[in-house]
């Protein structure tokens, strides 16, 4: 029989059993909707991760001093890696603050604590400085840039505010914006001159500008009072959204590093040095070198050294695991849906055994009967898959209500359609095959 005529008969059969087709395809509807949403949620998750890390440089390494830890040499790998906590014990007097790479005598690996039979020594708290930053840039190879920053909270007034509010104040150097991929909505970022002259200028995050002045435009060149002192707003950042770690740009006020120390925090700060590895593949080596360099300067101090790349990888890996889990769910739904189709087709073939007998008596070949029933299963699945895609489109706003990022795509829709038809065809094959193998006289005599 011609394929066009078989298709015509398939259409005839399905169009006369619309309700049955819809009921049969419910499993595929659920499966297709699930797979489309899973892909959309997975893609949305990836985009969210990318957005959260957009202010991070893949080659960035953060170094901070952790004075709370005590003795020992420990590695801390959150999320599968990325952070090393280093303590050098009993190594003699350190170089102290601002000591630079000259360090102190006795620096380096002494393992005093180890040989001291488990005696633990308190980690010496130090404050990292701009000089440490310069030393790392000078003595550690493979570094393209360094910067130092800290954050605190302070009372802020000005603009349209009727009373003071507390905001995150970040003391940063002029290259902070470039290193953290910050973009200006209006104005300029802080300059080296601002820092050296300890000028009272600031850059506002997008949310802060909106809250204090109503808009970025109004905020520009305005004045905010931090701890009662006036700061001129030299610029406003573009909206960055949620970020995975570090200072959240939207809700922070950036002031020059030295200005903040002089007027807001004093010297009681815990700065973070950020170094950028020239080659992303050399991040581990740079981390080790940084660690060694810091040991020279501060032999009794614990540092937390973490790299952004590992954080990104960990977040991506966890997102991929979630996506894989959701896809597994969708596959299970498809299998259940497919078994549903198979059962209904078996019942349908039982009902239509006599019809199959007539077709065989009239000379319909096994191939044509197989094709007809297989196409019926495929079209039923296609109907289910199309309905599934529509259901997914309908459900998406509801999912978004739960703050789940959903990124629908044409590829996702096509893939769920293909999956739906494929599942229906696979599970429809066996019943169709059984129908084609019926013995004519037995099929014909079936009531």
């Amino acid at each position, binding site marked *: 029989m011609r394929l066009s005529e078989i298709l015509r008969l398939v259409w005839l059969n399905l169009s006369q059993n619309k309700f049955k087709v819809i009921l049969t395809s419910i499993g595929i509807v659920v499966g297709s909707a699930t797979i489309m949403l899973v892909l959309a949620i997975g893609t949305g998750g990836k985009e969210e991760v990318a957005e959260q890390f957009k202010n991070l440089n893949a080659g960035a390494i953060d170094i901070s001093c952790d004075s709370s830890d005590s003795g020992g040499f420990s590695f801390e790998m959150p999320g599968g890696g990325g952070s090393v906590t280093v303590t050098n014990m009993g190594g003699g007097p350190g170089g102290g603050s601002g000591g630079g790479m000259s360090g102190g005598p006795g620096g380096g690996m002494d393992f005093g604590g180890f040989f001291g039979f488990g005696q633990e020594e308190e980690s010496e708290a130090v404050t990292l400085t701009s000089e440490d930053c310069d030393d790392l840039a000078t003595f550690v190879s493979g570094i393209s840039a360094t910067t130092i920053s800290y954050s605190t909270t302070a009372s802020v007034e000005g603009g349209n505010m009727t009373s003071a509010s507390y905001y995150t104040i970040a003391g940063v150097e002029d290259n902070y914006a470039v290193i953290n991929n910050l973009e200006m909505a209006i104005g300029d970022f802080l300059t080296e001159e601002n820092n050296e002259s300890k000028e009272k200028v600031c850059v506002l995050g997008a949310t802060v500008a909106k809250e204090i002045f109503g808009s970025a435009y109004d905020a520009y060149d305005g004045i905010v009072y931090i701890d009662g002192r006036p700061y001129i707003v030299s610029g406003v950042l573009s909206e960055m959204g949620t970020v995975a770690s570090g200072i959240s740009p939207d809700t922070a006020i950036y002031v020059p590093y030295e200005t903040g120390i002089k007027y807001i925090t004093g010297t009681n700060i815990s700065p973070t040095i950020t170094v950028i590895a020239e080659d992303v593949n050399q991040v581990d080596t740079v981390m080790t070198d940084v660690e060694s360099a810091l040991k020279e300067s501060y032999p009794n101090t614990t540092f937390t050294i973490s790299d952004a790349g590992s954080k990104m990888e960990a977040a991506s890996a966890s997102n991929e695991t979630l996506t894989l889990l959701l896809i597994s769910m969708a596959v299970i739904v498809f299998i259940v849906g497919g078994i549903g189709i198979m059962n209904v087709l078996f019942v349908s073939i039982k009902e239509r055994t006599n019809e199959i007998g007539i077709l065989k*008596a009239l000379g319909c070949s096994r191939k044509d009967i197989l094709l007809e029933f297989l196409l019926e299963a495929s079209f039923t699945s296609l109907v289910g898959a199309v309905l599934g895609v529509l259901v997914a489109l309908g459900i998406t706003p509801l999912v978004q209500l739960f703050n789940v990022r959903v990124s629908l795509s044409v590829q996702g829709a096509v893939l769920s359609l293909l999956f739906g038809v494929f599942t229906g065809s696979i599970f429809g094959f066996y019943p169709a095959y059984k129908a084609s193998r019926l013995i*004519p*006289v037995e099929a014909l005599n079936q009531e």
Partner: protein
Amino acid sequence: MENAMITMKNINKGYMLGEERLPILKDINFQVNKGEYVAILGPSGSGKTTLMNMIGCMDVMDSGEYYLDGMAIHETKEDDLTMVRNQKIGFIFQNYQLIPTYNVMQNIIMPLLMRGMTHEEAEEKCKNTIKLLGLDHRIGHKPNELSGGQKQRVSIARALVGQPAILLADEPTGALDQTSGKEVLKLFRELNDMGNTIVMITHDLGVAQSAKQIVRIVDGQLQE
């Protein structure tokens, strides 16, 4: 032999009833020549339906030789038997065996579609047959909208459209009232007069007498 449409030699067929074999057809030797109109007459359980299934290539024999229009059916595989059923045999069933979801036209053209024709070609080809059987005004109707006699005429039309070598009718008047039955038998005579070979199976002597030749089957054996 050259004129033979059906030649059966020593055909045996039985079914397993538990562990015991129940013989249905015993050493059947039978011949129908081209253009003949033969009735096979027998009571229920005599094996006449089984014999019809054998003639119609719907079932396989246990032993014996069967030639249909010169073709050795006993040596033919199932896939080729499909072609034989489509091109050489026109079935007319007691309970019509129409596909309920198809209309009259769609039912009638099925054998032609199976030969690879498009539905337009098939519809064109069966126009005369539809006219001959007086179904012109019923082609869009579904089987459940027709009377028994009309259904049987649709069944006959379907059997005729492919211009088969033989028309095989199983109790063609069994489900019809007397008037409709007579019309069908009259039609068979006319078709035979037009050169069609017809083999009819019936338990009714009155119906069998409309054929030109009667063969009796009793307990799976033929008696002339």
